[in-house]
């Protein structure tokens, strides 16, 4: 038995056991079984990854059984492992295992823990099915499975209307993308006669110059197929236009945001484009669209991220923006770099989210950074781990321009590679967007650090903190029940207070560092955030090492990777300069002169509001789609079904017949038997007529 069966199905088994047994075997059992199986899956995944790093392992396909067989379409359940899958295996199982562990602490006050852990494991199973898919339909199974888990986890606190709304929004917006994915699968089957990925990828290079009809016009075949599939990727990876669900998804518990909405699920679109990269390579138009959408998302999300005040929303927009980076890397043909950024991003973004969770935990569920400040001494482990994450995402490092080996935090290796690759591929506009967004990334990331950990405490204005302090005093009307958080009753007693300090903005509140089960994942992920880039960059993006690692699993472009190393010095320095500028601006605005941001916002009010309101996408979509859907539905129902079809149909007939005589009027008044009788008479009459004719 290959280890991959255990990796994929242990989480499913654990989810089923935890979910079905619920609280039957006590509170700890579901946690142990789910967390335990994830750590086993993780321990089994790393050797697989390492064997591919060694360059000896061949792709394998472990069959399960046939799923669907219809005409010439055969769909199998099977688990594919190659170097691309191996990357995803370690990312998914590692982050998932750590998030399971972290949730022991973060969700400790939650009465409904078995359900939470079951959902987490179910999600992991679906994600593993997605990354091990050997055909497009199984990938779609995983795709929808993670969508289901995401829906359930966003709506985990289902008493809260906002959580429910966010969950539905996530599912429905993703379905818009799925429409494209499904049509892409149908089209692929039509063209290639199979949905088996290796067969499709092998046939794709022979499709040059082929055209296909779509919606009444003819287009290049590969362009149509790739763009349809890419619509699916846009939905799952929250790219511009279909991104609106991701910020709202922050309604879910923070560990969920770290696992699903940062490290794994949202990268599925990038994974899909890389998996299908030999297909995308056949269409310059499709690659151009991928680059454009990626760059546009990258820019859009970063601009919004600069003004949000909710710590989780800033990180959510940051995720959206980083996904944009991955897409434009794929679009310029640097699939290795896209996967590399996916890999490093998983560690540092999961770290940032879990760190934010630790801050929120310490600040009694306050998420608004305007009420943070000066926390670094209170929660030092969280501070230093988040610092590692910030250094990683902003891309701090020493560029290798003096013949030395470049060294830096994770994002330095992966993000700079993307920026250099876009220049090397001749995509100058994408390059400049990438550089500018590096500045914005640095700015909004440092803004989070400075607002949260530095400056003076501004806690007193926070309602959550006031509640905490108030409750600790013991004048205890318990209004937590009605603030909708099932988890709100959160260790108030830990937070002692001191009247002497109430004037200093702390309101006498004492934040506490999180428990050890939450700090261990933070520390492990910090190691990843610091080292993942330096240690692994060779395998992902170095020309020869990369070629031997990827081994055809993605369309690895050795030439481009060579060219990337040969870009001019100013190009290599550009990202670092942008990063330093962002840091300087953030330092100036939030440390040196804290009144500056407000003045700036005042001076450029329309621009500020545009960013603060997320470019008004939600308002636009409500106006264009949501409200019309309900209005049209009502119109069809009342004016279509009732006022037209029924009026001229059955009701009309009834009226006409009634005018003709009193017989039917009597029928209508009551006896159902009469109707049955008429039907029987009709039948008998017909039969008699046939027989006696």
């Amino acid at each position, binding site marked *: 038995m290959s280890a991959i069966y255990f990796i994929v199905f242990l989480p499913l088994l654990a989810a089923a056991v935890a979910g079905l047994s619920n609280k039957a075997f006590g509170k700890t059992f579901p946690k142990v079984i789910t967390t335990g199986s994830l750590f086993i899956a993780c321990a089994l995944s790393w050797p697989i990854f390492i064997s591919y790093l060694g360059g000896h392992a061949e792709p394998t396909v472990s069959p399960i059984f046939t799923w669907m067989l219809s005409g010439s379409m055969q769909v199998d359940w099977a688990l594919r492992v190659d170097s691309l899958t191996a990357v995803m295996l370690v990312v998914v199982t590692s982050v998932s295992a750590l998030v399971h562990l972290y949730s022991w602490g973060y969700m400790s006050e939650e009465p409904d823990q078995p359900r939470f852990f079951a959902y987490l494991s179910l999600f992991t199973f679906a994600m593993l099915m997605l990354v091990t898919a050997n055909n497009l339909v199984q990938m*779609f199974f995983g795709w929808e499975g993670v969508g289901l888990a995401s829906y359930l986890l966003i709506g985990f606190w289902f008493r809260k209307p906002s959580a429910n709304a966010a969950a*539905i929004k996530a599912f429905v917006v993703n379905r818009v993308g799925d*429409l494209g994915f499904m049509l892409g699968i149908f089209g692929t089957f039509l063209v290639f006669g199979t949905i088996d990925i290796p067969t499709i990828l092998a046939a794709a290079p022979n499709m040059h110059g082929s055209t296909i009809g779509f919606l009444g016009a003819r287009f290049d075949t590969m362009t149509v197929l790739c763009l349809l599939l890419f619509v699916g990727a846009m939905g799952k990876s929250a790219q511009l236009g279909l991104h609106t669900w991701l910020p709202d998804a922050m309604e879910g518990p923070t560990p969920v945001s770290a696992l699903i909405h940062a490290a794994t699920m949202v990268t599925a679109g990038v994974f899909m484009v890389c998996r299908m990269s030999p297909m995308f390579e056949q269409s310059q138009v499709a690659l151009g669209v991928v680059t454009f959408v990626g760059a546009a998302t990258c820019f859009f999300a970063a601009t919004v991220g600069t003004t949000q005040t909710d710590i989780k929303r800033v990180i959510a927009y940051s995720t959206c923006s980083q996904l944009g980076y991955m897409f434009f890397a794929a679009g310029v043909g640097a699939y290795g770099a896209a996967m590399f950024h996916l890999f490093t991003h998983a560690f540092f973004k999961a770290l940032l989210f879990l760190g934010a969770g630790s801050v929120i935990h310490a600040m009694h569920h306050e998420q608004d950074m305007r009420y943070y400040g000066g926390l670094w001494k209170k929660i030092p482990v969280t501070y230093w781990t988040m610092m590692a994450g910030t250094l990683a995402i902003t891309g701090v490092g020493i560029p290798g321009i003096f013949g030395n080996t470049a060294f830096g935090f994770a994002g330095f290796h992966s993000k700079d590679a993307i920026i250099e690759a876009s220049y090397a591929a001749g995509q100058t506009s994408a390059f400049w967007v990438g550089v500018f967004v590096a500045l914005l990334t640095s700015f909004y990331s440092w803004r989070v650090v400075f607002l949260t950990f530095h400056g003076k405490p501004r806690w007193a204005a926070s309602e959550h903190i006031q509640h905490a302090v108030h409750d600790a005093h013991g004048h205890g009307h318990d209004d937590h029940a009605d603030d909708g958080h099932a988890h709100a009753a959160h260790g108030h007693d830990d937070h002692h207070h001191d009247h002497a300090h109430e004037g200093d903005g702390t309101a006498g509140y004492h934040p506490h560092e999180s428990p050890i089960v939450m700090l261990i994942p933070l520390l492990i992920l910090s190691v990843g955030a610091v080292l993942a880039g330096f240690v692994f960059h060779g395998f992902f993006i170095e020309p020869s090492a990369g070629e031997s690692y990827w081994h055809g699993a993605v369309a690895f472009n050795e030439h481009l990777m060579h060219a990337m190393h040969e870009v001019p010095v100013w190009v290599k320095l550009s990202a670092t300069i942008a990063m330093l500028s962002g840091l300087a601006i953030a330092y100036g605005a939030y440390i040196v002169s804290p009144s500056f941001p407000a003045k700036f916002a005042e001076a450029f009010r329309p621009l500020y509001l545009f960013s603060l309101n997320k470019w008004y996408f939600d308002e636009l979509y409500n106006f264009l789609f949501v409200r019309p859907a309900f209005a049209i539905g009502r119109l069809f129902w009342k004016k279509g079904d009732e006022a037209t079809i029924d009026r001229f149909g059955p009701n009309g007939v009834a009226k006409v017949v009634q005018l003709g005589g009193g017989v039917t009027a009597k029928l209508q008044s009551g006896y159902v038997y009469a109707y049955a009788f008429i*039907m029987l008479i009709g039948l008998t009459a017909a039969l008699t007529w046939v027989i006696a004719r």
Partner: protein
Amino acid sequence: MSGFPILTVMLAVPAIAAVACLFLNAQGARWLALAATFVDLALGILLWSGFQTGDGAAQWQFVEHVRLFGIGGAEFAWALGIDGFALLLIVLSVFLMPICIGASWLSVTKRVPEYMAAFLATEVLMIGTFAAQDLMLFYVFFEGGLIPMFLIIGIWGGANRIYASYKFFLYTLLGSLLMLIAIIYMILTTGTTSIPALMQHDFPAHVQTWLWLAFFASFAVKMPMWPVHTWLPDAHVQAPTAGSVILAGVLLKLGGYGFLRFSLPMFPEASAQFIWLVFLLSAVAVVYTSLVALVQSDMKKLIAYSSVAHMAIVTFGLFALNSQGIEGAMMVMLGHGVVSGALFLCVGVIYDRLHTREIDRYGGLAINMPRYAVLFLLFTMASVGLPGTSNFIGEFLSLAGIYQVSTLYALLGTTGIILGAAYMLYLYRRVAFGDLTKDDVKAMPDLDLREFVMLGALAAVTLWMGVYPESFMKPMRGDVEKLVARLERAAPAGDSLPTVGKPAPAVEHGEHAAAPVAHGEAH
């Protein structure tokens, strides 16, 4: 299995039980009905396991033929026999019947013996419809099937039951009459009433057109297709729970079965000629009824409208005239039969507790009815077509079939997955999520054992069909092949028509790296 008239026995058991019920008291009738439906379920499983598939398997199996009478060369016979399509629909019927009896166990207290007799009669007529090989016999079963349903709605239905049953009647009457005329014409011109023989008969093209339209009138109403669908929401709303289950589960499949048994094989040219009509009506139905479902405040009405949208995928798939389309359509019929039946049961469960179908009267059921919430969620997701559940297989295959005919209609049909998610999740949210604030809702107990067993069985089948649909697709594979072969001469070419490509030019990589290479060389 030769010699033992299993199909006749499957008809006789519920028929005898139905008559016997009328002479029993309420409790006796319940037990007898349950026993009879279980016997039929057992026989159905026997039928399924005895059904031959693969090469060399006969198309028609378990054939029985007893000549009744002949007039003018036409022989009328007690002719029964099944192919894969009929087998699967019979299995669906016998699986749902015990659940219907169980669902009525406590909630029906008025005229119980008659009620049970009506259900058993429905079962007889359903199985008869699917098993009949004689055209006249088919017609009697097909139309007769409505009579007990009509009584169930009219006698045991809700407040506005008379209007609903009347509407149901009016619609179906019109269609049946036209179909009857067509049937008589066919018997007179061909001199046979044998359905297998007629399936091989080639009618002249112009005759096909008229016959197709006459059959269409009947099947479109039964389906129901837009715009003759308005009887369905009313019928569902007024019907008792079990009535809705059998209506959605089996009766709605009669139209699809009719298309599959008559319109497609008997009139292939006409079917191809009317693809545009079927596709147009189906596309309207998907979008229109999904949007209407979104604004419903009555649970049953919402699910009824969603049924119309799902059935549109069936008509779409059937008229794609290719294997994926037809197999997909069958799988949607089976999946929808199980899932919508389950959804109506889910409504019934809470209706029995609170006596309202008003969605806004509920909320927060996940708190006090967790087991119910889990099962309801599973069926909601199945209705949405989540992979791994029954409905995905059908929807996916039918839409894949449609794509081969028309990309535009595939696009319109696929919008159903977005709209379906919207109205079902919106329903689920209002019923199961949110806070538990209303006192009467708080007092609702979770599923009892009877309800749990019924919904659990449906849940198991939903997952089985979603994960290993081969059990269901295997019996019909040969029939689909035969049907597709027969339709081949008429089937449309589709609008995709991909042209053959050439290998990519080798300069591909060079192009990519064109700009940088210049820099590279400079070093």
